[in-house]
């Protein structure tokens, strides 16, 4: 398992919609075939949600989280669940 994937791959920017089209496609192609990268994405996704709930995102990140990250209904459900888990 590559412990440096968290730093090597631009997963947070990807989740917040901050990558350009080429960067996004390169990352997604990697996610399709690299299991470690895919697992890392799942972890970073949950951690981003936790950071949002803890108020640890910058103003800019928070806006992107609310406007982009939460576009998918599945993500809103995950946020609800994470919020309940934290109580």
């Amino acid at each position, binding site marked *: 398992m590559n412990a440096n994937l968290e730093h090597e791959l631009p997963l947070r920017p990807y989740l917040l919609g901050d990558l350009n089209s080429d960067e996004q496609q390169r990352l997604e192609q990697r996610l399709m075939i690299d299991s470690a990268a*895919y*697992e890392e994405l799942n972890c970073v996704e*949950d951690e981003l949600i936790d950071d949002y709930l803890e108020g640890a995102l910058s103003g800019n990140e928070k806006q992107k989280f609310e406007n982009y990250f939460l576009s*998918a209904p599945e993500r809103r459900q995950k946020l609800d669940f994470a919020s309940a888990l*934290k109580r």
Partner: protein
Amino acid sequence: MNTQPLPKKEWNLTQEAFAKFLSWLGRNPDDAGKKYEDIRRRVIKIFVCRGCDCPEDLTDETINRVIFRSQEIAETYVGDPALYFYGVAHKVHLEYLRKKPDIQPPLPSDGSLRSEEEYGCLDQCFERLLPRSRELVLEYYQEEKPSKIEFRKQLALQLGIPLNALRIRIWRIRTNLHACVVQCLQQKAMK
């Protein structure tokens, strides 16, 4: 890459065609089935990450087109089929964007309207976790920033596993917990 919409009136999925598709994914049906599920999961994730409100529908459309195309390409295609799925998914997404109305997602709720049922299900599902998993989740989330990263590194050390392995373990427990809560709420809704 030809990824035109499937001519549904002209082509019906036969058992033979599906078998050919599966044989492209793996040497035996078990391997092919696992590969299929794995690819499907990743394509859904990509549609979710791209902000689509119907990721599973878009994934189904992607898979339908790939099954159709696989009849032609299976024997000559070189490389991981997952990347072919990705190429088709990308086109499906572009078509989706052309049709999709521009609607802002609703602001996240502050949790004040969360029902007792939801908390009840969470408690129930939490109790169903193996004791070790339950303790691990409680320990993992007991610290918040700024000390939580260092705390989690220490926790991983105590467990004798890399931090990444701990993060993945937590993700799996959390995902299973969420699935349990969703199922519990659906069962309550049916009563």
